[in-house]
Each structure stands twice: as structure tokens, then as C-alpha cells.
């Protein structure tokens, strides 16, 4: 990395560290100052005043997996759209056609998902 790179990203890293320190201080401050008098009822996980039934970390709907999965695949598309937008003027018509083909193929997948009900949260 050259000097300008250091000047571009060094402050970012410092900022990250300062923010982390700040967050850490805030978190530990409440631990230090805030009083604690735990008892069994207080430490119970919230379930509307009832004793929790079963374990909270239970298997959950697979819909959430589907959403994350579709997200990954379209995120990849977005990642290619960005460099494309960067050099779009230079690529010209060629780049346009290229990306249209790319998007078209992905749209096929998108409409397939739509048709199959993967995008319907509640059927």
C-alpha cells in the first residue's frame, strides 16, 4: 500500500477503533454503574409473564433460509452491476448488451422464484 492508500484507509481504521472503544466504554459503563440485583423471575426470558414453554432456540421456518439464499444470488448480481456502471460509458453498446443478457438470465430465475411462490411469505 502506498502513502495515499494509507491516508485513505488509515483514518477509516482509526475511526473504526475509536467507535469500537466508544461502544465498549458505553457497554462497560452500564455494567459498572448500573446496579444489579438478579433474581429468578427477573432473569427469566420474556414470554408475556408466563414461564417459557420449551427452548427458544427451536427450529424455525425454512422461509428465512430461502430469503437469505435469494439475497445472496441477487447480491452477486448487484456486485457485477457496480463495476459495470463504473466503466459503462467506455463499454458503450457492447457493455449494454452484455449486461442485458446477464440481467435477462437472472430475471428468468427471479420470475421462476416468483412463480414457484418462493417470494410469497405467507401462502
Amino acid at each position, binding site marked *: 500500500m502506498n502513502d495515499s492508500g494509507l491516508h485513505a484507509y488509515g483514518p477509516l481504521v482509526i475511526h473504526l477503533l475509536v467507535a469500537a472503544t466508544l461502544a465498549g466504554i458505553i457497554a462497560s459503563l452500564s455494567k459498572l454503574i448500573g446496579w444489579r440485583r438478579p433474581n429468578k423471575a427477573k432473569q427469566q426470558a420474556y414470554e408475556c409473564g408466563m414461564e417459557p414453554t420449551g427452548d427458544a432456540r427451536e427450529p424455525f421456518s425454512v422461509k428465512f433460509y430461502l430469503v437469505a439464499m435469494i439475497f445472496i444470488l441477487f447480491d*452477486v448480481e448487484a*456486485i457485477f452491476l457496480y463495476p459495470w456502471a463504473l466503466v459503462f460509458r467506455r463499454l458503450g453498446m457492447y457493455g449494454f448488451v452484455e449486461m442485458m443478457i446477464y440481467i435477462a438470465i437472472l430475471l428468468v430465475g427471479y420470475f421462476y422464484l416468483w412463480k414457484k411462490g418462493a417470494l410469497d411469505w405467507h401462502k
Partner: protein
Amino acid sequence: MVPTQYYLVLSAILFGLGAVAFVFKRNIITIFMSIELMLNAVNLAFVAFSQAFGKVEGQVFVLFVIVVAAAEAAVGLGIIILIQRNRQSLNIEKVNLLKL
């Protein structure tokens, strides 16, 4: 400036740790994660070489690796979910049969 070898050694260490995790971990998800770790180690080597030679092909390749990793994660985790549904376990020892 950091010598390229440093990056390569780091890459090798990460790859090795990934391989160790791959062999030693029992949980399929963790095993899958160790594969991702190995891919990452390889990516690091790609980028290091690309910077060493001053050519960006390596970085383009990294992009493709990431895309492949994404597709792989999507399908692989789908399979893992199915395994869990069918065997009620994520332990690799219990999922070593080809049929149910």
C-alpha cells in the same frame, strides 16, 4: 511494503487451518465453513500474486471465486437443511450413509 511471501505464508496457514477444521470438526455446517476458509486462503494468494505482478487478472479471478462460493453456499446449505430434516442430526458421524 510487505513482501509477497508474507501473504503467501499467511495464505498457507489459513489453508492448513481450514484443512484441519475440515478433518476434525464433526458438525456439517462447521465443515462447510472450513471449506469457505480454504477458499478465502486461496483468494488471498490470488490477490497477493496479482499485486506482485501488477496485473489485475488475479483479482478478477477472485471475483469469480466469490461468485462460485456464493452459489455453493446457497445449494450446500440447502442440502444441509435437508440432512437435518431427514436425520435430525448435523453430526457427520451420523450422516455417513448414502441412503436413509
